[in-house]
């Protein structure tokens, strides 16, 4: 038996799981507030834009988006396997491709701010 290369995908999956567990509920709440036209001055467009324009803000947003994407991709891969979809290589390729596209587009969107 040789050592598995699973850590490549499990590392971002575990990190993404931790990040989403803490951050996603807050983001959902903030989005809900914004939808209800309730945005305290700290969360106005200008403030959020300024946050996203700063290099540290970019890094944080990039981390949250990409880790969540890789987490979701891996979780969905396992879920599909458990539901009986045994074409693991095809499933993995498609899902990780989506995560990779999301990663690249997040990178370019953030850099263009």
């Amino acid at each position, binding site marked *: 038996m040789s*050592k*598995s290369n*699973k850590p490549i995908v499990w590392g971002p999956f575990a990190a993404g799981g931790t990040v989403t567990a803490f951050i996603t509920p807050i983001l959902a709440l903030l989005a809900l507030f914004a939808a209800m036209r309730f945005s305290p001055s700290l969360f106005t467009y200008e403030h959020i834009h300024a946050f996203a324009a700063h290099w540290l803000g970019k890094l944080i947003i990039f981390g949250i988006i990409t880790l969540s994407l890789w987490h979701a991709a891996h979780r969905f891969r396992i879920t599909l396997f458990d539901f009986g979809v045994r074409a693991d290589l095809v499933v993995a390729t498609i899902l990780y491709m989506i995560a990779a596209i999301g990663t690249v587009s997040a990178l370019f969107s953030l850099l263009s701010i």
Partner: protein
Amino acid sequence: MSERQIQLEVLRYNPETDSEPRFQTYTVPCLNEWVVLDALNYVKDNLDTTVSYRWSCHMAVCGSCGMMINGEPKLACKAFIHEYPDKIRVEPMMHFPIERDLVTVAEDFITKFASVKPYLIPKEDKPVSAGEFKQSPAELMKFKQYTLCINCMLCYAACPQYGLVPEFLGPAAISMAHRYNQDSRDGGRDQRQEVIASHEGVWECSFVGACSEVCPKHVDPAGALQQVKVASTVDWYKEHLMPWGKK
């Protein structure tokens, strides 16, 4: 002491003569304090001597009497009659071939368990005259919980992943490897990693957590496996991104 009649449905199967398993029902007068194992022993002693099942200690230490009780993996000696309805169904542990009636073939588990080297591999060879290997209470706490495993295999019967992928090394074997890896006196981690960090090792685990739910000794194999995953991931990054490091 109050008495209660229960209907004990026992799965009967002799692979040499029967084409398929069937259920046989026995009416057992149970005392309220009884466990399911007592009911089985009553059947064996008074009603039907041909029923086959494993048991030994009757006190959740030997790990022999694991079986499915009303669909859940349990030790028959720890499953109290008063917690069950009047009809109790006992079946052999899931995911294992049946040897006869409630007795399962444990070979797969035994081979896998042995493959992780579940024994102390000392860091340094030390003559007896040099004295004992000292260990602090804090060092003991790191692995003590995992020493409580009695190899009852209930975690294998509960694990859907083991049912799906029979090659999976499984909860008890990996948590026992973790027990020795965490031991301050042990130096065998590299040897065990070759087995448990493989694809059929810890990476087949999808963290369902059923193993920890059914464990009669509260070993928490699922927790051990998560720790093994984190440690194996750190290993992987060290080996691939920092090849100038160890080895």
